[in-house]
């Protein structure tokens, strides 16, 4: 029962506490306007290069932008605590680590889903793409899966945050790599073999492919394998993140680096 409380209530309180600075003045330009312009930029680059359809870029970039709230926010659940000098207190509590850290991911996923869905709808409307009405629910599911998958990667980044102090730099690199490797703007077949091979183990790759198929009229059943693969990749990062988090926690105590800014 205590673990359930820590998971839901603790997660919500932590999110409110760590992101109290996320006012509409910051949220709107960062999470609502920026992804729409990212979509527009790549749509026009695509038109200029005579590359892919508008739909290709809208789907890819809307889903990829979930990585900003998910990866950045998840890693900030550790970096933010350290910045506020509360990380030591959190880790000194007897609370189970699994509900403690995973509970923080729920609001992060919800935010990622909202940002991604908003970018998809607004970007799609501006550019004028057509998505079958029957695909809306399935696309929503894929967006949730992608946001969860990115949050798994965020947990890994959060764990690294106990050792690497420049988490913002690290997350920017992660964002850039996802932009290049995951087929967001360039089809995987156009990338060198080693890049498309690596992309299979990255979050978003399978989700973006599934969303593109759904947007062109494929059924949910036909992309079940891709959604499953996306979930598997996300879960793998989540487990790796959790294990690394526990390891880094022990290391930080041993080396007395927990509060080092």
């Amino acid at each position, binding site marked *: 029962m205590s673990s359930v409380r820590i998971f839901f209530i603790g997660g919500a309180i932590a999110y409110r506490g760590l992101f109290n600075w996320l006012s509409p003045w910051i949220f709107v330009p960062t999470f609502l306007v920026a992804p729409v312009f990212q979509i*527009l930029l790549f749509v026009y680059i695509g038109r200029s290069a005579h590359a892919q359809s508008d739909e290709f870029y809208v789907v890819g970039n809307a889903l990829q932008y979930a990585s900003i709230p998910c990866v950045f926010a998840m890693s900030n659940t550790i970096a933010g605590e350290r910045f506020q000098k509360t990380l030591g207190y959190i880790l000194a509590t007897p609370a189970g680590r699994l509900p403690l850290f995973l509970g923080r991911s729920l609001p992060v996923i919800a935010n990622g889903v909202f940002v991604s869905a908003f970018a998809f709808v607004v970007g799609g409307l501006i550019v004028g793409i057509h998505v079958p009405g029957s695909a809306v629910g399935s696309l929503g599911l894929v967006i949730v899966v992608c946001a969860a998958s990115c949050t798994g990667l965020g947990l890994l980044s959060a764990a690294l945050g106990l050792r690497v102090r420049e988490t913002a730099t690290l997350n920017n690199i992660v964002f850039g790599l996802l932009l290049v490797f995951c087929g967001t703007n360039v089809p995987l077949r156009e*990338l060198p073999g080693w890049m498309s091979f690596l992309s299979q183990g990255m979050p978003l790759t399978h989700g973006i492919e599934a969303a593109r198929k759904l947007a062109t009229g494929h059924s949910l059943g036909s992309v079940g394998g891709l959604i499953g693969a996306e979930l598997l990749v996300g879960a793998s990062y989540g487990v790796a993140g959790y294990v690394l988090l526990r390891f880094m926690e022990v290391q930080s105590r041993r080396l007395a680096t927990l509060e080092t800014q």
Partner: protein
Amino acid sequence: MKLARLIWVGLVFRVKELTRSGLFVFTAVIEPLIFATLTYYLFNAGSKPETVIYSALGAGMMGIWTSTLFASGGAISWQRWQGTLELLVASPPPFLLVIFPLTLGSATIGLYSLTATLAWERLVFGLPFDPVHLGQFVLAVPMLIFALGALGLVLATSFVLYRNANALSNMLEFPVWLATGVIVPLSLLPGWTSWIGWTLSPTWGFRALRNSVFGGDVWGPIGLSLALSTAYFAIAWVLMGIFERRARERATLSLV
């Protein structure tokens, strides 16, 4: 003489300060390489692969704007976080002249981006870089830096009054890339956006740089870029006066 010293010392200080920041080095060097790689494959995948060479220079110029945007915005925010903003405002020189070299320094760091991108594309993708007018290219680069620094200065003025204005940095990176035609021809965009692009000095700075590399008129764009940058400086002077007074009245200068 004092003014020249102020600008030189501010510029050198800013360049040193920025090269110590891991986040900024990423923004200035790594991010442009990511975009250069992306645009290379994107244009290569299209049915007009001959445009790859244009996109290569475009990616380098995108990096200069990114550096300027984040560092110019940060110029005020970082002073605020470090508790030195009030001291700078209270110092004898006009505050705008204190901030201008900081934004100029930010744009200068953008040279890293341009150089890194061009070197990356030469070494990794084998794209040639043979400017048609080398002399004019050398002149166009500082003109572009001045244009970007002046635009950064206008943006920076808002940071004096609005503490959350750094969120603008997150929003303005892609729109300016679009509006200035740095990577996509302005003719592809809706007609009304051309008007915005023409009023942005970097549009002409980028055009001068592009023409110096691929051929075309360089002096006209340089002149327009210089004229608009001077106008930006005047606008920033007026805005800074208003914002600084209001920030003093509201006592918000030191609020983080």
